[in-house]
C-alpha cells in the first residue's frame, strides 16, 4: 500500500480550516492586502513569505483579530471571524518580540491564558507542566523572562501560545532573534512540535530557507498579493514568475525572444550567442519576450566543450564564492551577461579545477531551466 502523503489542498472533498475570500486591507490610501482569496487546511504548516512591507504581517494580524479586513471575509472552520474579538478567537499568536510578561515567571506566563479561561487549578497545573515538558523548560519554570536566554524565551513564547490548544497558531518571525545555528535547531523543533500537537501553524517570515524548511506549503507574497502558493519543492523548481524564482534561492534569469521548437522553445538572449533550448508546456507566441530561469546547481562547469548537451555556452570565470560545501562561479559571457554555476566540493580545495579568468564551458540539460512569461 502506498504511503498516504499529506496533501489536503489536492483533495476536493477536504474542507479548509481557514478561507480568505476576497480580502483587502487598506490603511488610508495605502493598500496593504489587495483582494486575496486562498485556503489553509487543518494540520498544515503554512508559511507566508515575502520581503518586509509585502503585507504578510498584516495578513497574520487579521487572522489574530488585531486588524479587521476592509473588504472580504475570513472564515475559520466555516464561520466568519469578523465579529469575534481577539480574546474570543480560538487563535493564538507567538509574537516577534515574544511579548513575555516581564513581571511573571515562566510558569505564570504559560498559565496566563488558561487562567483567563477560568480553568480549575489542577487542570492548569497539568497543562502548564505538559507545555514545559514539550518545550524542555521544566528547570526554568520559576525564573523570570529576563533570567533566561533568548532561545529559552522563544520556547516560553511558543509554550504560552500553545497552552490553550488553539485551532490555529500564528508565528510572527518566530526565530528572527536567534543566531543561525540555534535557528536551524529550532526549525526542526518547531516541525516536531507541530506534528506532535497536530495544530495548524501559520508562520510569517522573510527568510526563504526557514519557510522552505518548516512549511508544508509556502505562499510567496509581493506588494499585498500572494504571487504563488505551493509546496516548497514546486516553488523552487516550478516558480510561476521571475519574482518567485528570484526571491527563492539563487537563480540566473535571461531575457529574450522565443521560437517554438521540438515541444519547447529556443530563446535568443544575445546576438552573438546561440539560442538556448528549454522544454516547456507553456503556450508562448513565436517572437514573444520571455524569461529563462536557471538554478546555479543545474549548470555544469567543464574545461572542455561537452558533446552531449544542447545548451552550451563559453565564458570566463569572473568570481568564485567558496562556501565550504559548495562553490559558486560567476561566469561572464562575451556579451556581458553573467551566469551563475554551482558545484559541490566533493574533493579537497587543493584540487580545485578552476580559478579566476579561466575560460570554461557552461552546459545544462533541456529540462533544467524554466521558461517564464513574466
Amino acid at each position, binding site marked *: 500500500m502506498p504511503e498516504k502523503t499529506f496533501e489536503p489542498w489536492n483533495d476536493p472533498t477536504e474542507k479548509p480550516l481557514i478561507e480568505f475570500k476576497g480580502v483587502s486591507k487598506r490603511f488610508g490610501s495605502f493598500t496593504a492586502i489587495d483582494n486575496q482569496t486562498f485556503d489553509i487546511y487543518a494540520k498544515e504548516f503554512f508559511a507566508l513569505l515575502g520581503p518586509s512591507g509585502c503585507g504578510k504581517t498584516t495578513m497574520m494580524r487579521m487572522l489574530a483579530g488585531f486588524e479587521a479586513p476592509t473588504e472580504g471575509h475570513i472564515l475559520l472552520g466555516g464561520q466568519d471571524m469578523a465579529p469575534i474579538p481577539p*480574546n474570543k478567537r480560538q487563535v493564538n*499568536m507567538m*509574537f*516577534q*518580540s515574544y*511579548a513575555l510578561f*516581564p513581571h511573571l515567571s515562566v510558569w505564570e506566563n504559560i498559565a*496566563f491564558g488558561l487562567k483567563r479561561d477560568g480553568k480549575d487549578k489542577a487542570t492548569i497545573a497539568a497543562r502548564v507542566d505538559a507545555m514545559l515538558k514539550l518545550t524542555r523548560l521544566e528547570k526554568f519554570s520559576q525564573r523570570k523572562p*529576563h533570567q533566561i536566554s533568548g532561545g529559552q524565551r522563544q520556547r516560553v513564547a511558543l509554550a504560552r501560545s500553545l497552552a490553550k490548544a488553539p485551532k490555529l497558531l500564528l508565528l510572527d518571525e518566530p526565530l528572527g532573534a536567534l543566531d543561525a545555528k540555534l535557528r536551524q535547531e529550532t526549525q526542526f523543533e518547531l516541525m516536531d512540535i507541530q506534528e506532535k500537537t497536530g495544530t495548524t501553524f501559520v508562520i510569517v517570515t522573510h527568510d526563504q530557507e526557514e519557510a522552505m524548511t518548516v512549511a508544508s506549503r509556502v505562499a510567496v507574497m509581493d506588494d499585498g498579493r500572494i504571487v504563488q502558493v505551493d509546496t516548497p519543492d514546486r516553488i523552487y523548481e516550478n516558480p510561476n514568475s521571475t519574482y518567485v524564482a528570484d526571491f527563492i534561492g539563487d537563480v540566473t534569469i535571461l531575457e529574450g525572444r522565443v521560437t517554438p521548437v521540438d515541444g519547447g522553445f529556443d530563446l535568443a538572449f544575445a546576438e552573438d550567442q546561440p539560442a538556448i533550448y528549454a522544454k516547456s508546456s507553456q503556450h508562448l507566441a513565436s517572437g514573444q519576450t520571455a524569461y529563462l530561469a536557471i538554478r546555479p546547481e543545474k549548470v555544469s562547469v567543464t574545461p572542455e566543450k561537452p558533446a552531449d548537451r544542447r545548451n552550451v555556452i563559453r565564458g570566463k570565470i569572473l568570481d568564485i564564492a567558496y562556501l565550504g560545501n559548495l562553490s559558486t562561479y560567476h561566469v561572464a559571457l562575451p556579451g556581458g551577461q553573467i551566469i551563475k554555476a554551482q558545484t559541490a566540493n566533493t574533493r579537497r580545495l587543493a584540487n580545485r579545477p578552476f580559478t579566476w579568468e579561466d575560460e570554461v564551458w557552461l552546459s545544462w540539460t533541456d529540462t533544467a531551466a524554466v521558461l517564464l512569461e513574466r
Partner: protein
Amino acid sequence: MRRALLIVVPYLWLLALFLVPFVIVLKIALSDYNLSIPPYSPQYDPSSGWQGLRDMFAAFDFENFVFLTEDDLYWKAYLSSLQIALISTLLSLLVGYPIAYAMARAPEQWRPTLMMLVILPFWTSFLIRVYAWKGILSTEGYLNQLLLGLGAIEQPLTILNTDTAVYIGIVYTYLPFMILPIYAALDKMDGSLLEAAEDLGCSRLSAFWLVTVPLSRNGIIAGSFLVFIPAVGEFVIPALLGGSDTLMIGKVLYEEFFNNRDWPVASAVAVILLLILVIPIVLFQRNQQKQRELDG
C-alpha cells in the same frame, strides 16, 4: 587614589549639607529655652576649652521631647499631617495616572509638548502659584463666579481656608512628581504585551489590571513617595490655603520658631519629623535599587 577621591567628595558634601545642620538642630533640641540671643542654653564658648564642652553635654536633656508627648497638639499635628499627605498622595495618583497613561499612548510627535506642559508650572515661583489658588478658590474667586454664572450653585462655596483647599494645593503642586515616574514606566512598556494579553483571552480592562498596572508598579511607588515625603512637612500650602483648624506639623514648627521663639521645642519637632520621614525614604531607596536591578 582617584577612586577614593570620587567617593570622598559626595560624602563630604553630605556631611557638610546634611549631617552638620542635623547635628546643630539636634543640639538645640537637647538644650533649654532661655531669654538670650540665640534663645537657648547651654551655649558652647570655645575659650572654655575641654571643660566647657563637658559642661555643655552635662546640661543636655530630653525635656523637649518629653514635652512633645505631654501636649497633644504635637502628636495630633503629626497624625493629621500624615493623613493629609496620604490622602493627597492617593488623589495625586488618581489624577496623575490617567494623565501619564494618556501621555504614553499619545502620538509620538505630541509627547514632547505634553511633557513640556507638565513641567511648565515649574517656571513660575511656587509661592506665586499657591497664591494664585487663593484668587481661584475664595468666596468671590473665579471658581465660584463660574459656578454661579453657570447656575450650578445658589450660594458661593467655601473652599478657601478649609482642608479641601489644602488637598487641592498639594495635589496641584506635586502632580508632576507623580506623573513623570509613571509616564517613564508606561513609556518603556512594549505595546505587544497588551496584544499578547488580549490574544490569550483578556478583555481590554483585565489586560490593564493584569499587565499595565503591574508593569507601572515601580513608577507608582516612586511617584507616591515623591509626593508623600514633601507633603508631610508641607508648610506654605496649609499656611496660605488652609484654615485655622488645618493642623499640619509644618505650621506648628513655624509657629514654635517664629511666634513662640522656642527654638529647642521647634528643633525637637523637626527631629521627630525627620525620624518619621526616614522610614518612607529608606523604602523609596529600596524601590529604586530594585528597579535598577531589574533594568540592569
